[in-house]
């Protein structure tokens, strides 16, 4: 497909890279020549210098023949103007990043007039993700599928865990419930394991389970079960705003530390029930004086990645059980995998995932084909949610008789509110929702993509 990306910032470049890898034709528009030169030298994209909201630039980029336009500049208004113009020129789908909460309501109001296919708000998505992690603090990462009925949770196998040294097929027995371990990361490589795979302490595993079974899983693994009642947030940007709102509403007490006095005052006025402190969290002794050890969780949301990482590491050193770190540049994240930075949330990645999910869906004709896409274990694997329809091949054939492509796993099937962790006897049935896990080098856009050519074994 012909995809035009306006704005070569962090998200713009990251989307361009992933979509170009998925073999789409990418045109990147930006006003900064240096950004374009850099993009030209590393990515297989066409670059055009100019203001992407200007009709001339869009014409030069041939936006009229474009399939998708993604507006990712700094300014919400510019993004919207860009989409509006592109739509008028004849671009099929347009997407915009809209950050200002005031506009979010606006978008719903104007959606049809603007012709927007999708508006993404990275900060809002990040806040939601953090909130969901906080709800079940024992897991490093949580991805929900099928309206929250199914969860993929990521965790590390601790020394002395009941799973240490056990084979996968023994796992369900040990845990006392049906779960599926669908991805294992060990020494930087990700495996989609089979039943005879042996787990070791230090492995980062992704587990599929029904939402209602998660509590049992936590219990049988002997993980932290305490509910989070007090949260310390460091840095109050937009994510903090969305998050505080959500946390206060669910009755969690929130303390916020902010460097900038004016911003702190503004925040306090907006959330009278939160306690806002003006100070520098990375200063030695400051966190102790604010009683950091009284909190169940610390969430670092400052604008500087390094600061967030250091504060999180310091907090887990101080004995805080749960830390969530916001990172904008996740390229160097794997250097930190051994240190305990806890859960990591990357707004850039969340935005890119959402856009890529949409693009894979439309490039496979039916807009409903992919219903969710999440990246697991630092982007090395993907989990995708599909709806099984009458057009899906090989329905009602037991899975054990089907040949799947390498590194493809059916992690879960839900059928009329019932969550099935599948084994060889289960089948796909129209109306089911399936969750497929695969390594990220394989681009799956449709359920057809997971089967070998002669899939049915006799």
């Amino acid at each position, binding site marked *: 497909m*012909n995809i035009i990306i306006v704005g070569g910032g962090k998200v713009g470049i990251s989307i361009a*890279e*992933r979509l*170009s*890898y*998925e*073999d789409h*034709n*990418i*045109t990147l528009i930006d006003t900064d*020549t240096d950004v374009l030169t850099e*993009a*030209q*030298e*590393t*990515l*297989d*994209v*066409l*670059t055009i*210098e100019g203001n992407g909201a200007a009709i001339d630039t869009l014409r030069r980029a041939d936006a009229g023949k474009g399939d998708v336009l993604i507006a990712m500049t700094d300014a919400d208004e510019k993004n919207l103007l860009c989409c509006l113009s592109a739509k008028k020129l004849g671009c099929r789908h347009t997407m915009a990043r809209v950050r200002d909460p005031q506009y979010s309501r606006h978008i719903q109001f104007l959606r049809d007039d603007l012709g927007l296919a999708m508006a993404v708000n990275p900060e809002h998505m990040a806040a939601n993700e953090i909130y969901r992690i906080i709800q079940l603090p024992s897991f490093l990462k949580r991805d929900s599928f099928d309206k929250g009925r199914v969860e993929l949770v990521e965790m590390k196998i601790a020394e002395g865990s009941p799973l240490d040294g056990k084979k996968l097929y023994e796992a369900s027995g040990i845990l006392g419930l049906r779960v599926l371990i669908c991805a294992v990361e060990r020494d930087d490589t990700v495996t989609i394991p089979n039943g005879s795979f042996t787990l070791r302490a230090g492995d980062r595993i992704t587990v599929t389970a029904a939402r209602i079974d998660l509590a049992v899983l936590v219990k049988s693994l002997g993980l932290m079960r305490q509910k989070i009642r007090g949260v310390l947030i460091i840095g109050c940007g937009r994510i903090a705003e969305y998050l505080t709102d959500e946390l206060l509403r669910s009755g969690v007490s929130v303390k916020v530390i902010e460097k900038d006095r004016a911003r702190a005052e503004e925040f306090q006025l907006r959330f009278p029930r939160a306690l806002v402190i003006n100070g520098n969290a990375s200063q030695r002794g400051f966190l102790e004086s604010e009683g950091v050890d009284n909190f169940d969780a610390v969430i670092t949301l400052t604008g500087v990645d390094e600061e967030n990482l250091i504060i999180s590491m310091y907090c887990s050193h101080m004995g805080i059980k749960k830390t969530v770190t916001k990172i904008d540049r996740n390229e160097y994240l794997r250097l930190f995998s051994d240190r305990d930075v806890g859960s990591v949330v990357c707004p850039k990645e969340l935005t890119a995932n959402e856009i890529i999910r949409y693009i894979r869906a439309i490039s496979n004709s039916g807009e409903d084909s992919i219903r969710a896409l999440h990246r697991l274990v630092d982007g090395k694997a993907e989990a995708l949610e599909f709806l099984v329809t009458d057009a899906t091949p090989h329905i009602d054939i037991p899975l054990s008789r089907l040949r799947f492509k390498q590194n493809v796993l059916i992690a879960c099937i839900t059928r009329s509110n019932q969550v099935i962790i599948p084994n060889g006897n289960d089948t796909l049935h129209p109306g089911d929702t399936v969750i497929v896990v695969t390594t990220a080098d394989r681009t799956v856009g449709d359920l057809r993509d997971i089967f070998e050519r002669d899939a049915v074994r006799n």
Partner: protein
Amino acid sequence: MNYKIVSNYLGRILLLESATMLPSLIMAIFADGLTSAVAFAVSIAVAAGAGLLLIFCFKPKNRNIFSREGCVIVALSWVAISLFGALPMTLSGAIPSFIDAVFETVSGFTTTGATILTDIESLPMSVLYWRSFTHWLGGMGVLIFLLALGPDGRGNGMSFQIMRAESPTPTAGKLAPKLHLTARILYSIYLGLTVLQIIILICGGMPVFDAVTASFSTAGTGGFSIKNDSFASYSPFCQTTLAVFMLLFGVNFNIYFLILIGEFRRVFKNSELRAYLAIVGVSVAAVTVNVLKFFDSAKVAFHHAFFQVVSIITTTGGTTLDYEPWPEFSHVVLLILMVVGACAGSTGGGVKVTRLVIMWKAFRNEIKKLLHPHAVPTIEMDGEVVERSTLARCGVFFFVYMILVSLSTLLLSIEGCDLETNLSAVLACINNVGPGFGLVGPAMAYTCYSPVGKLLLAFDMLLGRLGIFPVLLLFVPSTWNGRK
């Protein structure tokens, strides 16, 4: 420096070269004798063997190509294809001396068209074909052909460095989002025009073999002919066809792309195209008037003036007559046109009209600044601002170009030929034209130089074809030493 990716590309280039020798092999089997057939068979085997060795002995761990790797891949590939391309010429006995054969092949791939052969017609057909085909392949670029075959890894845009190093233009850009599609568009236009030319020539009564080789030679703006008298023996219609197509191949290929997508306004407004056509028009008029007395009618004078001017400015170098007896004025016009060269992004060589237009605008800015010291001079071309860095690179290019021309002329003068011969030989080689004046004039060959002199001129051809810098990079120690 990523040596393994360099060797991988070199290997693939050699495989490609051996594949392009296959038509010659077939021709040798059916038309020539056993010697030529064996020569091509051995050359194909050697090139393919070396290529496979380079590919399979060094498997690249990553496919990172930075500016350094891009330049080295291009420069070494051109050296390699020239050395291996010279094999069949020597082995078949057509050109017994290997140095002479290398000179001839470099001259072919760089689309120079300078030859050391005095009796071309005695060569086997397969060698004649191969000699002309090197023009066609070198005209658009061997590595661009390789890039057109397929993408180098999914979403990896780093082979752009190769395209940039192989296109001797101040600014290289893409036509389509994907690099391999850009390369395919360029080669499709190139192939389309070539086929069209072959058809017109055949309709004009030229024998098929002549039409094909002449088209290869003019499409690449090379200049090799299969006749001793260059293009003189063809009919006026065929000569005019050749001249018109030379003129077309000297135009930036982006112009054809704009025509294909229907952007005619941008074509007419293109300042390089306008300057190019203006230079051709003025030169043809000046030369026609100057040589009027040599011909029976003004029409014939115009015909030959047009052919020669177009052939020299596009750096083709094929001729319809020996222009040695022409007056000094016409000689100087042709000498200046050699330096001017064709448009950027065409198959022609020389300094390129774009650079001259940019430098002319810079010159006017300097004058303006002297008159209005606080003026804010900017340079704009076809609606886009010319970056200061581009301007600086153009200036440095001119400086290095002058140095290289002076140095080469100085070294050649040790051999004892006169200044006109030496200077025109260097200019004809570094600008990829072919024939010069004096002892290297259109009726002569480059036989007056020693093997060392020939290698020096071959080196100049490579410098000119690849835009000087990628080749010079090979001689900078820090290219090879990652720590410096």
